[in-house]
């Protein structure tokens, strides 16, 4: 099964990741190259040139506070300057709360006698890491089928054979990404500013139907072969709880565009993974000796329960 657009997909993803990495590489001040969290209680600052020992050794030249608490300055325990004087490490008395962006102010940076001005910078965790963690979170740690138990009707209906499972999974991923992006757009620019939050449900389900229609029409015209393979699953997508759960979650957590994209991708891929795993087992169950009352759905539920137990092992995991 070849996807013709696949040739452009991979380079596109690489390009997007490259942009993110680049954005995280530079800072707002011309003399400061990079700021980042280091271990549990330190911040590391890299300068473009060597800084004066006298200036760097004086902890009162540095001010750090958590972004939502500008009036509480964190206590710096010690300042370490590297041998080439281009790197400074600030160690704090208490562990840092890395989930909050920290604002770092450096007064009159002095390098080789010249003043480089005052720098006010934001130190936070790598954004790409955060996005990636949302993706992995939605896909494995909080797998929508096994951990959040959504989308079960369709799940049990299409997981009998590997081919149907994969087909359903891919169709679903496409529809959910499209509808999630549209939902985010409408939520951020129409529903929230006008305090029409209570119209969430109606609007989201409307968008889902619209996306299904859109994907249906586009697929029919663009790639009839693909349509023949996947078209029949499109109708089932609407009856899927996950498709409306994703917009509701992104509205609740107020994600921005990239985070919504990651959530939708994670949900879709997680669903695909779950379907694939389940269908592999069910194909073998067909050949097994199942008691008559358990044949069909009951044994499928028991298997799903075992998978859910296995996925429980991922709970609490956090990367980045």
């Amino acid at each position, binding site marked *: 099964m070849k996807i013709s657009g696949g040739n452009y997909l991979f380079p596109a993803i690489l390009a997007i990741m490259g942009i993110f990495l680049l954005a995280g590489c530079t800072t707002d001040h011309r003399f400061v190259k990079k700021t980042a969290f280091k271990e549990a209680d330190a911040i590391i600052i890299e300068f473009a040139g060597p800084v004066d020992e006298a200036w760097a050794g004086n902890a009162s030249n540095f001010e750090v506070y958590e972004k*939502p*608490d*500008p*009036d*509480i300055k964190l206590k710096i325990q010690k300042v370490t300057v590297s041998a080439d004087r281009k790197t400074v490490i600030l160690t704090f008395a208490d562990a840092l*709360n890395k*989930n909050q962006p920290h604002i770092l102010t450096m007064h009159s940076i002095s390098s080789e006698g010249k003043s480089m001005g005052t720098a*006010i910078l934001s130190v936070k965790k790598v954004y790409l890491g955060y996005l990636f963690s949302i993706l992995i979170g939605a896909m494995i740690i909080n797998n929508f089928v096994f951990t959040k138990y959504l989308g079960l009707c369709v799940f049990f209906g299409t997981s009998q054979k590997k081919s149907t499972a994969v087909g359903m999974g891919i169709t679903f991923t496409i529809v959910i990404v499209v509808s999630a992006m549209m939902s985010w757009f409408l939520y951020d620019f129409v529903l929230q500013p006008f305090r029409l939050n*209570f*119209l969430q449900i*109606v609007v989201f389900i409307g968008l889902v139907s619209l996306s299904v229609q859109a994907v249906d029409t586009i697929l029919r015209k663009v790639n009839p072969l693909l349509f023949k393979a996947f078209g029949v699953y499109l109708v089932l997508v609407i009856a899927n709880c996950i498709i409306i759960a994703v917009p509701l979650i992104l509205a609740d957590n107020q994600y921005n565009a990239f985070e919504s994209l990651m959530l939708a991708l994670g949900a879709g891929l997680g669903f695909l993974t779950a379907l694939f795993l389940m269908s592999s087992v069910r194909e073998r169950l067909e050949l097994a000796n199942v008691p008559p009352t358990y044949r069909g759905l009951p044994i499928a539920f028991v298997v799903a329960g075992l998978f859910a137990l296995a996925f429980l092992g991922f709970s*609490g995991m956090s990367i980045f």
Partner: protein
Amino acid sequence: MKEIIRITVGLTVSCLIAALVMGSVFVITDNAKKHNEHVNVQQTVLGLLGYTKSRPAPSDLRLYTIYRYIISDGDTSTLGYMLPVLKGDSVGYQLAVIDLDGQLVNQFKLGVTPEKASEPTERSAALKEVLKPPRTFVYADSTIIAKLGQRRLAYLLPGEFPGFKTFIDVMLALDPSFKIIGLEITEQEEDPGLGAEIKQDYFKNQFRGKSFEKLKALHVIKEPLPEEYKEYLERGKGRESPIPEGELEIIRSKYQDKDIYALTGATISSKAVTDGVKNMVTKFAYRITRLDSVITRQHIPVAF
């Protein structure tokens, strides 16, 4: 063509009717929701202070709420406190703008009553009248001060911090020396049977009586909860207390300065609550001390 027009008209009409139904239900339920929330907060506060139906609050108990905002003007930030002040016989609100070093910068009279001030939209409107653009303000948190007669009885802090699953909302009660009087978990979405046990007495009552000094160094120990401590924590649930009166004091002083015993199978939730409470109290203590010094220096006629 006629078909399409009929379809479109039919859809539009149905959409409008649906919107009408939902809109009216929303308006009706919104008021009920706000009222219920308010009642809930009142009950939690009274419960934390030790007042129940059988022991109602004395008539001279007053609750005053301070709202804290962060005001930004370009690159500089200042703190704005909405303070309840005495205006003759009634209580009004005043905005005190304090810079990051604890010095009073400005004072404004606000045209909002305490009842209306519990609504975020009313507060924003009142603040917009005195804080003109380019200054912007963002709501930070609020503090309820309970006053009995002339003295401050307790500080009540509603707060939110990340838990294991999503957020945990709590209401913390401190006495004037920042010792914890009580902790109530108002909202959580932790795992039932595991993390959700933080709302059980045998966890949250462990925080009761911890002094400010102990709190600053509070940790979570991964040991099972001793039986006698558990019985001590759960007493007063309507059941016969299995511990005789004399022993209560012994148990209390024995475990007074111990760290928090984690919940079985929910170490992360326990740690989240401990760290969250620690942060809340330390930050609050720092801020209220500065606010109090500004109030005394500037002779602001606050109601608390």
